[in-house]
């Protein structure tokens, strides 16, 4: 436990939001992840929101180069990384300028004055020094020359002056550990492992961490310290902290295992989906064949080839990549093979905002191919939910012999939260069946789910051809027959609609009828839940419901929608789900609440929207 000798009062609080902000090269993402790691091991509930520029190292000291990491940790069950930070750590003027507007009034801002020279202010395009012009009067400003402090702390180190400066982030982290009465041990251990081959780096960073921690005791910068107790209200179980992309990758491996298949992943690197290919490339012991293809098109085609050959084909991408893959996906629909297409959405159109989040690929996912090319679409709600959704995508793909699009987004992909680890026996298997029986074999015969038989090439006696030309019902021979085409178009659509028979009607949380139902899909889950709780605290009861299966929509929705005067749908797009809902349920009242800033919804924004809707 913390070794602080401080006699300052320790104040118990329920939840804290800290934002670390600095230059892309300042190591803020590492600082944030280490704080997260420690909070997780301590047993807090938490949610994180890394926010970084698209450039790897944007020009130093500039506002576009600012990288941020927000973490909220709590003793209660929380659902979002928080609307506004309680504490802002600003490593330079640019970080301060970009982030100060988000800080809570009266919040703490810790500023590294060592980086506030005239040239630093100029790089950040500031005409006056915020530390002197009273623009920070509404906050509690703690000024520390971190540049100088690390030099002092690392006096005698063999590291170059430049390397010494790179330990600043651990000094800052140490100070935050002191302020929140945290244990340094997990980070000390992590440093020892991370730099195992560079003992001088281990020593320097550990020293910087301790120096930052001790500074809290010695320097009298603060009037008190805070403690956020363990969260005991989470459901019992074993937990680990998990990021969305990580959970999704594991879910794919689990899904393939539950189907009794090996994965063939064909992908092309793209932000923010690349970590999925990277993870799967490291799971070769599970028989995963991972191919970094020459482009997005080759990636999806290779994945389909993998499924054709008897593996579970997977391809992962982000919006622009999905656009490129759509022709291939159409083929997978025509030849009716399982395929999981992961789309980690980002801001668009075109290259758009590669590192920012958005939900604007929903219509692309459902409708974005030539002709009538239906497929199931499901969406992850949170980082840990990505595991379950990946398993579900595999299940649907295999059971219905269909490509499935699994939507995640940048917020889920890079965000993290505690994950209650599933017991393996809780996971239901859905073994794939390969046809080997020769008698009465028809490539486009169908079972009760309308799925056609899956044949591994190499099977004796079942040689047959499939392709993108329209096929005759049952035989699969090329057919240009008018009636057959219409029959097959309907058949393929009917098969996708059949998925509804194997998915549950989502649960309504809150009043079973009333004024407002907050309806979400994807990563708006946490914000909507948070808003419902905040409204309840203010005496306003609203219901909420979340869609995992966004196409086909589950059975039973109409009865639910009918029980509310308004169904309010917040989306990080211009109202895409609402368009789908209005088409399916024209008699119900949907109100769209769009936000397209590359940022998730704040709980306050949703609360205000509901209140204005209710005239309160």
């Amino acid at each position: 436990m913390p070794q602080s000798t401080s006699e300052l009062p320790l104040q118990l609080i329920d939840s804290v939001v800290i934002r670390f902000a600095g230059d892309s090269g300042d190591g803020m993402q590492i600082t944030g992840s280490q704080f997260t790691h420690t909070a997780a091991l301590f047993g807090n509930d938490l949610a994180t929101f890394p926010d970084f520029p698209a450039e790897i190292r944007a020009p130093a000291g500039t506002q576009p180069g600012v990288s941020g990491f927000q973490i909220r940790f709590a003793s209660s069950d929380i659902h979002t990384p928080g609307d506004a930070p309680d504490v802002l750590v600003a490593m330079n003027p640019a970080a301060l300028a970009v982030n100060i507007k988000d800080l809570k009034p009266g919040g703490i801002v810790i500023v590294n004055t060592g980086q506030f020279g005239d040239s630093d202010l100029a790089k950040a395009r500031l005409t006056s020094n915020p530390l002197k012009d009273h623009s920070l009067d509404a906050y509690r400003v703690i000024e520390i020359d971190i540049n100088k402090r690390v030099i002092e702390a690392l006096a005698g180190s063999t590291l170059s002056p430049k390397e010494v400066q790179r330990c600043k982030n651990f000094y800052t982290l140490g100070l935050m550990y002191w302020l929140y009465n945290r244990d340094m041990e997990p980070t000390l251990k992590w440093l020892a492992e991370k730099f195992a081959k560079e003992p001088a780096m281990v020593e320097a960073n550990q020293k910087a961490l301790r120096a930052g921690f001790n500074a809290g005791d010695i320097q009298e910068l603060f009037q008190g310290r805070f403690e956020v107790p363990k969260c005991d209200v989470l459901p019992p179980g074993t937990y680990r902290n998990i990021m969305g992309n990580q959970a999704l990758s594991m879910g794919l491996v689990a899904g393939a295992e539950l189907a009794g298949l090996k994965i063939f992943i064909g992908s092309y690197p793209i932000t923010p989906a690349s970590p999925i290919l990277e993870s799967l490339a490291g799971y070769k012991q599970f028989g995963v064949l991972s191919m970094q293809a020459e482009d997005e098109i080759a990636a999806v085609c290779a994945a389909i080839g993998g499924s054709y050959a008897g593996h579970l084909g997977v391809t992962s991408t982000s919006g622009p990549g999905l656009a490129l893959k759509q022709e291939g996906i159409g083929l997978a629909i025509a030849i009716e093979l399982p395929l999981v297409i992961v789309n980690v959405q980002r801001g668009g159109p075109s290259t758009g905002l590669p590192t920012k989040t958005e939900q604007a690929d929903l219509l692309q996912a459902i409708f974005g191919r030539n002709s009538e090319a239906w497929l199931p679409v499901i969406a992850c709600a949170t980082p840990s939910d990505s595991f379950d959704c990946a398993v579900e995508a595999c299940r649907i793909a295999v059971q219905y012999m269909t490509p499935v699009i699994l939507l995640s987004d940048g917020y889920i992909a890079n965000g993290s939260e505690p994950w209650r680890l599933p017991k393996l026996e809780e996971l239901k298997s859905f073994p794939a069946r390969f046809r080997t029986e020769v008698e009465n074999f028809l490539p486009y015969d169908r079972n009760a789910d309308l799925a056609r038989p899956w044949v591994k090439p190499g099977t004796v006696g079942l040689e047959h051809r499939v392709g993108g030309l329209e096929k005759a019902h049952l035989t699969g021979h090329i057919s240009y027959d008018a009636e057959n085409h219409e029959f097959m178009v309907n058949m393929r659509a009917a098969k996708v609609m059949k998925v509804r028979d194997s998915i549950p009607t989502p649960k309504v949380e809150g009043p079973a009828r009333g004024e407002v139902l907050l309806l979400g899909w994807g990563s708006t889950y946490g914000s909507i839940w948070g808003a419902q709780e905040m409204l309840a605290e203010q005496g306003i009861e609203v219901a909420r419901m979340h869609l995992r299966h966004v196409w086909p929509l589950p059975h039973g929705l109409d009865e639910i929608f009918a029980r509310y005067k308004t169904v309010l749908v917040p989306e990080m797009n211009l109202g895409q789900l609402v368009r789908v809902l209005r088409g399916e349920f024209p008699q119900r009242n949907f109100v769209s609440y769009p936000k397209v800033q590359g940022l998730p919804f704040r709980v306050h924004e949703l609360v205000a929207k509901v209140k204005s809707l209710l005239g309160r």
Partner: protein
Amino acid sequence: MPDDIVPTTTAPKPAPLDKKAYKSDQEVRWCPGCGDYSILNAVQQLLAQLGVPRHQLCFVSGIGCSSRFPYYMNTYGLHSIHGRAPAFATAIKTANPELQVWIATGDGDGLSIGGNHMLHLLRRNIDVKVLLFNNQIYGLTKGQYSPTSPPGLKTKTSPMGSVDRAVDPIRFALGCGATFIARTIDTHQKHMLAVLEAAAKHKGTAFVEIFQNCVIFNDGCFDEVIERSVRDDKTVDLIPGKPLVYGKQLDKGIKIDAAEARVVAPAEATSWDPSTRSAAAAFVLSEMAEQPGSPTPIGIFRSIQSPTFDEGMNKQVQAAVAKRGPGKLQDLIWSGDKWDVK
């Protein structure tokens, strides 16, 4: 769960291997007189000759006249999308290494829309056989110029003559580092059979350009070279280990000197070796036909051994299993730092 699909009978023995066994029950729909027929015939004959069981064969294609090929083979077949056959084939061979995988493609499919994928197929050296039907024209879309059309060719989309420079498939393949490169002629069954046999036996990507006549939109485009009466004088067959002699009377030879190939007396002809470390000689030969009076090389330009992608990928999986043991879901999920909530 597709529970109505339950294996009840055991599979019969592979069908006897005669050429007919490789013919599917589908009516062949190429234009009468199209060069594609003779390629189909040669492939079926070769497979029967080599005795490759039908269930172990997989033909993959893209889009175009040539890409209808899989429908006519009584084997496994995937008629995919335009230009992408190499990507499908790569995965099929890697995920199912027992299969013998062939790609049927054309000059448009393989070198225009699918040029990028062809590059990567060749450089990765996937163990698949590529039949590139080169007719210097777009057939299925009814006669537009292709990337192999000679400059100046007048077509519907180039009424004043194409201003595109043409790509030479052989030089393209050489540039991509292909491990087997050959050229043959649709009307020369014997030659085609020999080249295809060498291709089938090559381990790695075997790239075979086939001069193929499109009777409808580009009839006779290769006649200057391949017409029976001139063929022997206008082509030189690259046969590994044999001198580069040609002509009806075998009265001429080719000598490769530094960066040039010249016509010489047979006795002076270079003995052909397609397996040299450097591909320079093959490259020199590939350019030779552009000099007036020089023959067009056909036969085997290049044949070298190199590790294949499909084997490399599978070896890595085996190595990972050997090192870490077969992956266990429990270990994967229940890894990292954990804590308990009671």
